[in-house]
Every structure is written in C-alpha cells, then in structure tokens.
C-alpha cells in the first residue's frame, strides 16, 4: 500500500489533510488524514511523525466540547501513527501519555461527568498500549522518574478503575494488559531487559501503587465468576508480576536502611515515594499475605483450569523472587501448589509437578530455614487434622489431602528432619498414620480360609499367592493406600532412619492397637530408606550405607520374630490353640469322652473373637511382607540374616491359615529373588543348616514343637539325601521329644514322621525302588481289590500306615487275623539296607536305615492317642485296611455315639445362621458326615447299622441345613448307594417319591410309598437329586440282584 517512500512526497501528500484538520476538527478531516497515512511508508512517516501528530493532538486539546466519535477517531489515528513509528523524545511521550489518559477520564470539560463510551475507552486503552510499545527504552524510562509519579499514578488508577468496574470483558482484559505494559512487564518479547538499577528504580515507583493495585486486583480475582476466566487470569498474572517486582528479595536487599533526605525542590514528590525499608516490607508482606490468602483460596478451586494454572505460575513466580519477603504467605502458596499436584486437569498437574521439581532442584526450601519452618508448620497442622479429614472426607478428598501431605514431605526433602526432630511433630504425624492405616479386621473369611491339601505343594501355590489386598477401615480407594505408602517411603528416604525406626518400633511395642500399622510403616520406611519405589523431587545428600540399613533391619526383625509377635492365635482349631491350653487341661478329652453325647461337642474355647484372630493374621502377614521388603532392601546381604529370618518364614509357610501361608510363600519367593537363589528349593537346600538349627532349638520348647515339626516337614520335602547328615540328629530330637509328649503332640509329629519316611524312601530307594514298588503294589492288590488308583507315592503311605496299624493291634494285645502281614512288613524295612550287608549282621545299619528303624519303633507308642482328630483319622485308615477287625468294635462303640451326636446337633444347625459355619460344632458335624460314608463302605457294615447311619444323615438333607452339611450328607448317601442301593432307594422314596408306579397287572396291588404325592418340602430337592444319581448309577452298572420294587 505504502507508495510514498520519501519524506518529501509524504509531506506533500499529508500536508493538506493536516492543515485542514487544524482548521476544522471534524470527523471527515480525520478520516482524510487516516486515508493519507495509509499511503505513506513507515520510514517516511517517522520523519513526519510530529508533524502529523500535531493536528491530532491539537484536536484533543481544543477546549470546546467534542463529539465522542471525533475523539475516538482521533485516538485511532494517533494509534495508527504510533504503530508504525517510534517515539524518540521524552517530552512527546509524556505529553501523549497524559493526553491519552485525559481521554479516559470522565470528560472533564463537560459538567455532566458522563463517562466515555465503551468503544472510546477501548480505543484509548489500545492507543496507550501502542504508545508504550513505540517508545525507545530510554524514552520509556523517562516516564518512570519520581517526577512523573503523579502522571503514572493517574494512569494506573484509571486503568484499575476500568478493570474493576467495567462490565465489558474486553475492556477489563485490555485494561489489565495495558497495566501490565505500564508496569513494564509486558508479555511480548520486544522490550529490552532492564538492568538492576532500572528495576530498582521502577520498583521504588511501583511500591507507591502497590496497595491500590493489589487490593483492586484481588477484588477482581475473587470477583464474580461470570466475568470469565480471561480477566481473572490476566488479573492474577498482573498481581504476581507487580508484587514480584516490588517485593523482590533482590531489590529489597539493595534498599538503603534510611530514606534519603528529600531535596527541597522535590519534597512534594518525594513525599509520595515509598521507602521500601524493612519496616515497610514487613507490614506490606503482612497485608499482602491476607490478599494472597484470599486469592489462593478462591482460585485454587476455580472451575476453569487456566485460572488454576495461572495460580501455579503465581506461586512459582513469588517463590522464586520473593522467598524471603513473602515468607509469611508461603504456607498458603505451597499448600495451593502441593494441592494442585493432583488436579483433575493434566496440564495443571504437569506444570505443578514441574514447578515443584524446580523448587526442589533450586533447593529453595533446603536452603531456606524460614520456608522449611513454614512447611513444617503446615505439615503439623495437616497431620493434626489428618485423622479427622480421613474420617469425614470421601476418597477423592482423602486423595487430595494425602497428596498435600506427600507434597509437603517431598518439598521439605532433607529438611524433613526438622519436623522429625520435634517430638510433637513426629508424634502427630505418626499418630495420624497409625489412625489412617487402621485395617478393617471384620472379614470372617480371612480367618476361615484354610490351607487345603498337604503342606508339600510349595510351587503350586506360588503362582496364585501374591500380595493380598488389604482392607482399611477408613478408606477403600487403592490410590489412598499408594499415597500413604509413598508418604512413608519419602519419610524413610529423607528422614533420620534411626530416629524413625526407633519411634515406630516404640509404637509397635507400645500398643497392640497400633502394631499392624506401625509394622506397615516400618516396612515402607525401610523400602524408602533404600530408595526402593520412592518418587522424590531431589536426591538426598547422603544415602545410607548397607550397614546402617542392616542394623535397623535387624532390630526390626528381632521385634517381628519375637515370640509375642510371631506366635499369635489365628484359629480356634484344637491343634492350633497354644499348647499351654492342652497342657493345662490334660486328659480333658478323655474325661468328656465318658459322657455319652458330648463327645463331639467343642470343648469350651478361650474367649477369642474372630476380629482378634483376623487382626493377628494380618499382623503376621504384614510382618512377613516386611521380611520380603527387607530382603529386597539388602539384596544378597540378606543372606546373612537368613540365619534368623528364614526359619520363622518357613514356619509360617506351613501355617494352616491360607492367607498366612500364601503370604509366607510369597515372602520365600521374594527372598529367593533378592538373595539370588533360583528357587525356593534351592533356598531351603542352601540354608538347611540354619533351618536345622532353628528346628532343634525350637523342639526344646513345648509351645513351639508343632511349628518346628512343620518346618522340618517342609524342609524334608524340599531337600535331597545330602541333608541327611544334618537332619539326622534333629530327627532323633523329634523322636525323643515325641517320647516325652505323646499326649498332645502326636498328631503333629505323625505328619513329620510320615514325611521322614517318605523322604528316606525317595532318597535311598530309587535303585531298588522299582522292584519294591511292584512288590508292594501286588501285595496291595491282593489284599484289597476295591482299592482305586494310587497316587505315585501311595505305596509308601500305605506301608507306613500298615505298620502303624499293626503296631496298634500288637499294642492292644490283639493279633490280627491277617497274621502273615507282620512277617511281610519287617523285610520291607530291611530292604532299605544295601543288599551286600555285613555277613556278621553286627555292623551298624546305614544311617538312613537306622533312622527308619527308630521312626517305626516310635509308631508303637502312637496309638493311645487322646486327640479326637487323630482318632478319627486313624479310624478311617484302620477301616480301610482291616475292616473285619474293626467292624464289630465300631458298630458297638463308635457308631452309636456318632449317630446320636449327629441327631442331637441337627436341630441346632438347621436353626443356625451363617456364623454357625465357623463354630467347632459345625466342623465336627462336617467331619463326621464326610467320614461316615466311606467308613461304612470300608467296614462293610451290617444292615441295621446302615439304617442307623441313614436315619441320622437323612435330617441333614434338609434344605434348612447349612449347604456344606447337605453336601456332606449327600456324600454319605452316595456311599450307601454303593453298599445297598435298594434299601437306600426305598428310604429316599419314603421321604419323597417323584413317580407314580403303575402295577403291570391289575391283579397286583398298586405300589404305595409313603413319599408319594407329598407336598414339596425341605427334603425334596436333595432327595430328588440323590434318586437321580442312583438311577444313573444303576443304569451304568449291570446288576445281578433282583429288584422288584425299583422302577425300570
């Protein structure tokens, strides 16, 4: 467009319009000038700048009333000129500045005091903006002299007024942006940076406006949300830019102590100037703190994310430039920042993290004691409120509260020790953690879930058993727990580990109420101390040495595995109750055995609630997790601690509570990983000497014998023959211990003896095993044709029990009718010896054979056992193998007791609610029902006995009974169907008969069964199910017997 390049040409073109405008101030003339301007190139216009501006400024200055539109047009025109030219003269700038400002003020000329129109305001603001950009730096700076303070103040107040009171969003925003330019903090890149002195000078000036600006801006920021986020964002930005420049630490530091004596001629102006001395900055900071508090409170929950983002910038800016002057406000600022870490908006979140990391990296906090104090105060306040907040908030609220807590800790970094060294702070914090981490211990299932199957299957359960999810009393969200974890780890990372471990161990010991939580915290502390899984903002200065870690870990482990904390009651099963009980009431079972019906009733249990047991289970699990964690912390160094740690873990791996044993197995895997063992087998094998030590020492204590034997059991299953020299003496110990305690330990030791034998056979019999296997398999077949498939080691199990039975018979003075067996068995023992044994027969047996012999000798004594469970177990095994001998005794002595107890208990279980499933009475009912069927079948019982059994079990087919009992009762009937299908059919049909049976011939009387045509009742479902099964069974097996009544 610009075609007139030379000043001469331009002058020629513009002159008429300028002259015209000077003469007649009309819209048309202004428009003409503007049109002319469009044709002039920038350099040319620069030359003519003042010439062109003159008519325009003249128009504004003419003291007669003017049309608003004219003014607007003139201002636009000025802006056009300024946009393409630069101002080089200070006077011109100041004059233009003041003239433009005048346009904004209520028209002074008119008496009506009408406010200018919105368009005009906008135009003037725009022109001012352009003006500030068109002046050179030194020219601009002339505006920022004490002498121009009134002028600046005028402009600032005008613009602030607009920003505050105008309704139009555009004006508000423009006014704020213009102000931003005015305080020399424009966003655009065109400006030259100010040097220190210049900044100092400007800061001095702006200090005078600070009260006005900050109050007004805070009102804008906290004003109606309807003003839109842009205005708020601009206001926030302006706020922090102004405050950040006036209160900048760097500037304040340079302010002289005393105000300079004003020179006489400047005194009026100087009075307006503020001296930013310490006194002033302190009082200003106080006032600003109030405003900041308001601003932060309001905008941190502002619905628009850009406002929150700007708040982050505010915090960052102020923290960076005013970390000393505004220290009093930092608690609010940091709180806002830390709280926004978990903002719902990703941008805010990431910016927030960035800022936090920046703060941490610059070590603002670490090097600033005052800031650290602020943070620790915040932390203290938060810790105090934490339990209440956790109680009252929802999970989202909890997450934000905890991220706040975490943020404080991360920001404090190594300075966190200031907090920890204060007793009250540490106390508050730890109490809060204790309360928040309280576990929910009401779940009955935890107590009830038992380990199924034998102890051996280590590998099998490894896959399934990873960390069990914990349930907390005060929250459900997983994120909350993760945050708590991080809190503890960050504490461990930065904190004084000795202090922390000492404190939390104190809590652990002090109260059972806090024990689980304290253990959880300790575990995480150690992980954090080693830097495992901890997310921090800055590295700590010194990381802990392995010896430090090991020291702490050893003291924690000592507490964990202390008898009082490791052997807790987790079940009310007879075997598990502390053996003290058994010891206290020796012979109890024998005495109650005399009274007829109570034999199967539970003996009075010590008062232990499910909650207590649940809590105990969790405590053990947490401690086990701790062991995992410590192993991970120490890596291969943990091998040294296996000396004391492996035995207790293995002990728990054999625990009957599912959760505990799975956790312990998980721990074993973790230990393997940490210490570099290929497998659990490998771990056990390599450390069997430590285990053996633990076993032999524990065997010496009555209360721990059961555990010790469990560990031995597990160990035997996972080792090979090389272990024998090590365990030899322990096996002897077991045997001698057994010798001393047949009364109460027999059942536990039975299992160990069994695994000893199994292990011996496995280790030493493989060469001659095949022959042996066949031999014994053949023996079995001939003895018991109905025996089903055997598991691989079945013959060994058989052999062991045979021996057992035999001994029992001998012990009772009853030589079995299968007398030949005795002779058969002993050779099988001697077979264990190598074939070429010493001809003299005097040489000592090989050690494994010696052990085997010793075990067998002990079996003799195992028979007079007082424990009901053992007896039941034994009974089934006996029945399986020597039915004839037992039948009579069983039907005479045992059966009546079993059936009568079943009958007497049935009404109770039918009435009972779901809790009944966890009573001992239920378990006994279940055990009896589950065992009775096979017992009857094995013993080949007579008809009358079978009737008794069927009668007793029938009532358990009722739908009112617990489901498990129903199923068990069904199983009894399945067995009965095998033994005597016909009578079973009849019995069932008596209860309920689904079919009508038409007699094949009219002369025969119709079949009348009492179950026919009955209403559907509690038994119907189960009976129909059984009948169906019976039908299937009968149709698949060819029958030889006669069956008049059965339908076909």
């Amino acid at each position, binding site marked *: 467009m610009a075609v007139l390049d030379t000043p001469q040409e331009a002058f020629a073109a513009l002159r008429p319009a300028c002259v015209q405008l000077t003469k007649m101030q009309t819209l048309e003339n202004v428009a003409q000038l503007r049109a002319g301007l469009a044709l002039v190139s920038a350099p040319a216009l620069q030359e003519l700048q003042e010439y062109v501006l003159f008519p325009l400024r003249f128009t504004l200055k003419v003291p007669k009333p003017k049309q608003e539109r004219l003014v607007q047009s003139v201002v636009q025109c000025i802006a056009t000129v300024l946009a393409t030219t630069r101002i080089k003269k200070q006077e011109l700038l100041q004059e233009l500045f003041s003239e433009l400002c005048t346009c904004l003020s209520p028209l002074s000329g008119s008496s009506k005091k009408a406010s200018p129109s919105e368009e005009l305001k906008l135009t003037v603001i725009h022109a001012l903006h352009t003006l500030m950009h068109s002046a050179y730096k030194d020219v601009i700076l002339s505006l920022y002299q004490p002498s121009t303070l009134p002028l600046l103040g005028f402009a600032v107040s005008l613009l602030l007024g607009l920003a505050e009171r105008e309704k139009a969003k555009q004006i508000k925003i423009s006014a704020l942006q213009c102000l931003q330019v005015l305080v020399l903090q424009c966003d655009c890149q065109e400006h030259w940076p100010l040097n220190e002195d210049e900044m100092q000078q400007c800061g001095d000036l702006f200090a005078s406006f600070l009260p006005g600006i900050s109050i007004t801006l805070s009102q804008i920021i906290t004003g109606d949300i309807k003003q839109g986020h842009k205005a708020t964002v601009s206001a926030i930005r302006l706020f922090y830019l102004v405050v950040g420049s006036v209160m900048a630490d760097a500037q304040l530091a340079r302010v002289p102590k005393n105000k300079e004596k004003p020179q006489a001629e400047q005194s009026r102006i100087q009075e307006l100037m503020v001296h930013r001395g310490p006194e002033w900055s302190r009082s200003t900071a106080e006032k600003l703190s109030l405003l900041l508090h308001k601003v932060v409170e309001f905008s941190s929950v502002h619905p628009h994310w850009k406002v929150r983002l700007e708040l982050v910038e505010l915090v960052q800016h102020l923290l960076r430039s005013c970390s000393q002057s505004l220290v009093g406000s930092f608690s609010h600022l940091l709180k806002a920042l830390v709280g926004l870490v978990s903002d719902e908006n990703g941008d805010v979140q990431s910016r927030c993290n960035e800022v936090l990391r920046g703060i941490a990296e610059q070590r603002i906090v670490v090097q600033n004691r005052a800031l650290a104090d602020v943070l620790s105060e915040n932390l203290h306040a938060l810790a105090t409120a934490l339990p209440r907040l956790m109680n009252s908030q929802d999970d989202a609220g909890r997450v934000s509260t905890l991220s706040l807590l975490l943020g404080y800790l991360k920001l404090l970094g190594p300075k966190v020790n200031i907090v920890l060294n204060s007793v009250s702070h540490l106390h508050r914090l730890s109490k809060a953690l204790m309360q928040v981490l309280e576990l929910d211990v009401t779940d009955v299932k935890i107590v009830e879930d038992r380990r199924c199957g034998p102890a051996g299957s280590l590998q099998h359960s490894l896959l399934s058993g990873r960390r069990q999810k914990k349930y907390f009393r005060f929250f459900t969200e997983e994120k909350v727990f993760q945050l708590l974890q991080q809190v503890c780890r960050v504490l461990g990372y930065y904190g004084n580990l000795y202090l922390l471990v000492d404190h939390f161990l104190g809590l652990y010991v002090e109260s059972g109420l806090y024990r689980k939580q304290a253990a959880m915290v300790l575990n995480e502390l150690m992980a954090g101390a080693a830097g495992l899984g901890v997310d921090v903002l800055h590295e700590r200065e010194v990381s802990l040495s392995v010896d430090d870690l090991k020291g702490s870990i050893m003291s924690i482990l000592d507490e964990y595995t202390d008898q009082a904390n490791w052997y807790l009651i987790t079940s009310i099963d007879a075997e598990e109750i502390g053996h003290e009980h058994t010891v206290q009431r020796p012979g109890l079972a024998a005495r109650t055995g005399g009274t007829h019906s109570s034999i199967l009733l539970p003996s009075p249990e010590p008062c232990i609630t499910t909650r207590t047991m649940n809590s105990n289970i969790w405590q053990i699990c947490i401690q086990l997790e701790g062991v995992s964690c410590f192993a991970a912390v120490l890596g291969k160094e943990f091998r040294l601690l296996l000396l004391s740690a492996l035995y207790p873990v293995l002990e728990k791996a054999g625990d009957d509570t599912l959760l505990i044993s799975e956790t312990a197995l998980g721990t074993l895997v973790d230990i393997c990983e940490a210490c570099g063992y290929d497998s659990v087998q490998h771990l056990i094998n390599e450390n069997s000497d430590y285990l053996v030590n633990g076993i032999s020492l524990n065997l010496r204590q009555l209360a721990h014998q059961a555990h010790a034997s469990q560990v031995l059991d597990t160990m035997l299953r996972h080792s090979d023959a090389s272990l024998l*020299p090590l365990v030899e003496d322990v096996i002897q110990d077991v045997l001698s211990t057994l010798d001393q305690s047949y009364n109460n330990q027999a059942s536990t030791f039975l299992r160990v003896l069994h695994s000893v034998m199994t292990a011996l056979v496995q280790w030493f019999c493989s060469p001659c095993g095949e022959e042996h296997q066949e031999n014994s398999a053949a023996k079995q077949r001939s003895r018991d044709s109905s025996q089903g498939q055997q598991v691989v080691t079945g013959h060994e199990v058989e052999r062991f029990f045979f021996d057992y039975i035999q001994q029992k018979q001998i012990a009772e003075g009853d030589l079995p009718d299968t007398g030949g067996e005795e002779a058969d068995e002993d050779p099988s023992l001697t077979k264990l010896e190598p074939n070429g044994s010493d001809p003299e027969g005097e040489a000592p047996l090989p050690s494994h054979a010696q052990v085997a012999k010793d075990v067998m000798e002990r079996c003799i004594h195992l028979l007079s056992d007082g424990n009901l469970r053992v007896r039941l177990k034994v009974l089934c095994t006996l029945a399986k193998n020597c039915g004839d001998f037992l039948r009579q005794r069983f039907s005479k002595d045992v059966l009546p007791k079993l059936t009568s107890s079943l009958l007497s208990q049935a009404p109770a279980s039918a009435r009972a609610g779901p809790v009944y499933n966890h009573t001992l009475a239920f378990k006994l009912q279940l055990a009896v029902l589950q065992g009775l069927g096979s017992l009857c079948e094995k013993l080949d019982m007579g008809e009358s006995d079978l009737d008794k059994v069927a009668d007793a079990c029938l009532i358990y087919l009722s739908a009112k009974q617990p489901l498990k009992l129903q199923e068990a009762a069904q199983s009894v009937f399945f067995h009965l169907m095998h033994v005597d299908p016909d009578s079973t059919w009849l019995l069932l049909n008596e209860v309920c008969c689904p079919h009508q049976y038409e007699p094949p011939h009219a002369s025969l009387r119709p079949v009348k069964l009492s179950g026919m045509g009955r209403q559907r009742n509690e038994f119907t479902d189960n009976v129909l199910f059984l009948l169906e099964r019976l039908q299937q069974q009968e149709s698949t097996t060819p029958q030889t017997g006669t069956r008049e009544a059965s339908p076909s």
Partner: protein
Amino acid sequence: MALPPPDPQFVLRGTSAAVHTLHFSCGGQETDVATLFSGSENGFIHVWNLKTHRVDTALDGHGRRSVYCVETMGSKDRLLSQGRDQRICLWNLAEGRTSVMDSIFTENVGFCRCSLLKVAQERWLMAMAAKALEEVQVLELPSKTSVCTLKPEVGAKLGMPMCLKLWQLSGGAQPLLLAGYEDGSVVLWNLSMGKALSQLVCHSEPVMSLDFDSEKAKGISGSSEKVLSIWSLNEQQNLQVYKTHKLVNAGISDITIRPDKKILATAGWDHRIRIFGWKKMKPLAVLDFHTATVHCVSFSDHRNPRERLLAAGSKDHRISIWSIYTQT
C-alpha cells in the same frame, strides 16, 4: 527362683564326626570375622565362620585320624594341631592357604593334648607327651629345638601324662608346667631344672583335664570320677588340696576357666556342660543340650566381653555355642 538355663545361641552341624577340640580366634581386628576351629574324630579341622555360622574351610592334615588339639599361634593364620597320627602340624592359613608348614612327629600313642605358651615375640614353648610313656618333652617353636625332657623319678609310677598346662607368672618369670598323670596325681615341673617341684594326688583315676589360674595360684582338675579337685600352689611352690567338689555324674573330659577368671565350664560324660563360679565353686548352670559325651569346652577371646561365647563339642557331632553370663 533362678532363671531356667538358656538354650544354645546356635548349634554348628556338619563335622559328621565326634568333635574333640575347639579353639576360638575372635580377638583380632574389628573387620576380622570371628572364627572357631574344631577338630574332629575323622581327622578334619573345620574353620567356622561365626558370622555365617558355616564352615569356611576344612583342613585335612592328620590322615583321617582323630584331631584332639587345635591352638592358634598369635594370629588365626597360624594354627597348631595335634592328631592321633602322632603328629603335630603347624599350618599357614594366611590369604586362604591351607598348607602344613611344618610338623613334629611325637611318637606318642596317647591322647594327651599338648600345651602352648608364648614366651616372646615369635617364640613359643610347647609341652607334649613324649615317646617314652611317662615322659613329657618341651620344645621351642618354631625352631623345634628341645628345651628339656621331664622324666619322673624312677619308681614314681605316675603312668602316662594325661593333660598338660604350661604357664608362667606375669612379669616373665620362669615358665612352669603342670601335668596330670594316669595315676591321678598332678605334678608341677620346673623346666629349667627338669625337676618335679611338687606332686599332689588329686584323684584315684586318671586326670582327664586341668586348668590353672596363675593369678590366684589355684587350679582345678577333673577325672573319670564324680569329683572335681581344686588345689592351690603356695609360695614354697607346693601343691595343696584346696577343696573338692562332688558331682552327680561321673566323668569330666574337659575343664576351662574363662579368661576373666570369673567362671569355669566343665564338659561332662553325662552329656552336660556345667558352669561354676570360680571363686567359690558355686554351681551356676547345667547346660543340657547334647545327646552324647561332651568332649571339650572353650571360651572365646572376643575383645568386647558382651560378645564372648562358650562353645562345647560333643560326640554327637554337634558344637553348641552359648552366650552365658556375659554381663557379669
């Protein structure tokens, strides 16, 4: 009521033979790992690491014949061992070596443990039962030069020496030797004169073990009887019976006074370790763990008294480690 006796702190297994002798070496630098040497019936010397409680090395130098004495000479890198192969071996174990540097052929068929006494830097005296049945020979180590041979007077009928204890009063006085003999007497020998200074019949059975406290000039001996005999040495260097202590079960295979002279331990044929106060022979504890004769007891030489341990080796192949009365 007194506290029940403690359990062993740890039990070392894996010698796979009866343990006949034990010797601690724990007094070295702090970085050094405490070590226990054990000699067993199958001729092996096991070097136990007391941190891991595992065997670091097994030394085989006595032709699979029983090792019944192990001592260190100065540091734990120099070891002396005596075995039923009638040899005394001097080992160099520095930097992981396991070699026999030197050996002495004793030609003695008994099982009398030799006794070692450091008399100067790098100079030891060693007393051992000699080839002739009743004689004791004293050598200087490492030079192996014979210092003297101690022969009982003709017709003394002491029988074989059973146990030896070389000692000297602090201040570098003349080294003296206490020897227990088969006939139950204890004889004090002057080495330079090669002459018996005093003889005391303490037991009617062979003296199995003795230990002597040179500060209190008091010693104790045990035999296969049910009696512990405590005797003292007066200024005229005469041995006198001080008192005797009755035991429940007969047979003491080893007696050791703890280096601080406060307590002593005995290894009993009744499988038990007994702890007594040394001053008044007050019975303090009966440690019951082993399932066969206890052959030897030894106290550790830890610098920190709290860490000090007692070890006992038994015929049941086990070595039990105890931490007892460490606070007193």
